[in-house]
């Protein structure tokens, strides 16, 4: 078989094209971010960005938001997905559809909904205070993360024989809370972590919610820098990308580590 006509050749072409398509802009951005000092490559742009107190404040704020979103998401999604699988298996497609809605409805629609519902002249004026607005932020981010979180957890649950494990635990005297905490949660931990890393990546760079609710998050800061500076935005983009990739890498790592408590009912 001639190499040039083989499938392998075309596979390599496609792969190279993909790599170039993704890598070139990144390499370009990275190279540009190093050119802040005239005539030499330096990390000056990174030094400026990382030293900017607004960077530190907004980044910290977004990390807090991301962690809160993960906690709320887990508390919301794990019991729901468990309950639906255990008691309402027929409703699973419906619930799954609902959790996919945030992919269809633009974030801006959700924000305007929130602003209309919870403005200062409403019954529940959450937008009136920074704390109230933060609650809205976490609620909104939880919604944005829902498709990823739910899918991850639901897939994790699928590898378990939920019904029998629940019944076994019940016959040993356990109640539903104990079962969730001691059996279900530990067994879907890996799925939760992968959902959590995705959530983290989404929330860290999110712009629409933070901008329209006027909160000091990392997304608007990136936009601000991008509009006013030359080299720093490139450095920021590289940083943001690195965070996302780190999350993805950790996700993979955790999935590998799972081998240890691998679920196997029959051999």
């Amino acid at each position: 078989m001639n190499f040039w006509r083989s499938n392998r050749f075309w596979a390599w072409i496609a792969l190279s094209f993909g790599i170039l398509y993704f890598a070139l802009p990144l390499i370009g951005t990275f190279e540009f971010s190093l050119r802040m000092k005239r005539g030499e490559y330096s990390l000056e742009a990174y030094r400026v960005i990382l030293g900017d107190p607004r960077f530190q404040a907004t980044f910290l704020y977004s990390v807090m938001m991301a962690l809160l979103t993960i906690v709320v998401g887990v508390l919301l999604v794990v019991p729901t997905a468990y309950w639906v699988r255990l008691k309402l298996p027929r409703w699973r497609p419906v619930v799954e559809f609902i959790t996919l809605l945030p992919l269809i409805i633009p974030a801006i629609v959700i924000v305007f909904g929130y602003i209309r519902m919870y403005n200062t002249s409403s019954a529940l004026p959450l937008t009136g205070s920074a704390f109230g607005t933060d609650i809205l932020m976490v609620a909104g981010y939880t919604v944005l993360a829902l498709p990823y979180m739910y899918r991850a957890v639901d897939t994790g649950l699928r590898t378990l024989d939920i019904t029998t494990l629940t019944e076994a635990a019940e016959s040993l005297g356990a109640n539903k809370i104990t079962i969730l905490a001691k059996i279900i949660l530990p067994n879907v931990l890996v799925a939760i972590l992968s959902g959590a890393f995705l959530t983290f990546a989404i929330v860290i760079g999110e712009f629409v919610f933070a901008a329209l609710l006027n909160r000091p998050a990392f997304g608007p800061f990136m936009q601000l820098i991008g509009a006013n500076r030359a080299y720093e935005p490139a450095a920021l983009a590289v940083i943001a990308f690195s965070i996302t990739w780190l999350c993805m890498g950790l996700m993979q790592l955790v999935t590998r580590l799972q081998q240890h408590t691998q679920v196997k009912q029959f051999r």
Partner: protein
Amino acid sequence: MAFLEISNLQKDYAGNRVVENFNLAVEQGEFISFLGPSGCGKTTVLRMVAGFETPSAGSIRIDGKDVVNLKPNQRNIGMVFQAYALFPNMTVAQNLAFGLKVAGKSKAEIESTVQEMLALIKLEELGQRYPFQLSGGQQQRVALARALAVKPKLLLLDEPLSALDAKIRVSLREEIRSIQRKLQITTIFVTHDQEEALSMSDRIVVMHKGKADQLGTPFEIYNQPKTRFVASFVGTINVLEGVVTNPQTGSFKLNGTELSLGRSLSKLKMGDSIALALRPEAASLGQVARKAGQLQGIVQDVNFLGSVIRVRVKVGESVLSLDGFNQPLVAPPKAGAQVIVSFSPEELLVLAD
């Protein structure tokens, strides 16, 4: 009053009655098997006792207390499932400790009970393993020990051996029985394998279409089946159709020969047709002096099963199975040979419908 009393139990699923008029009284320490074909309602009855299903009618009393309104986690009943259902995130020792922790036992007590249970199932070395590092048979023993660790009032096992291969199935059923004897725990064992039920049980409930057809010792179930279903489900039978000639003496006509059961047929009258069952091991090939019943037939096929040889003989329209022990010096008959099948009429079982 019996330790476990189930009366008039009934279960409907959307108008479909899957358990009907089910009654059972189990004494403390007894080993009872539910035996029946797939779909006859064995699991449903067991799950109602465990509390996973709510009866549509009837009552379940354990140790004198009605448990129908109690949740499964309030009943103190140990349960072992076909799929083992060990908690995959916990080691063997942690699995065994789970129920004790939930019950709020002290650390020392948990530790000693776990060791005791590991010794009971002879897996002392494997306490730190995870379930996925165990064989199926080991997993099921852990599941049994986990259920027993909390000292339940009742042990329920739903086809615990079905997922295992034949050799382990036999050794594990002996182990389960000996543990049950040692702890004197009242046990219900669900199976569709008659050999399991016959070899393990104090008494067997044969279930058919949601009802208990017969309750009795393995000996009674096998030798005095009350219905045609029980006779045919437990062991193999040959059904012979005869005509009653004298109900008082138990005489009847079979293929033109008059024979007697040696006991009266009170419910029948002269001229009634009668269904009689003949166990394969109760029939022999060739004429036997003590056996008055004789039928002419042609050998259809011969199955050599090792210690037993099963010969199928065509008699008139029907085919009879005969079991005889292997005799090294006597060759079995060949297919097509003309033979006589003989039996003692007293050993025939009368089948009610």
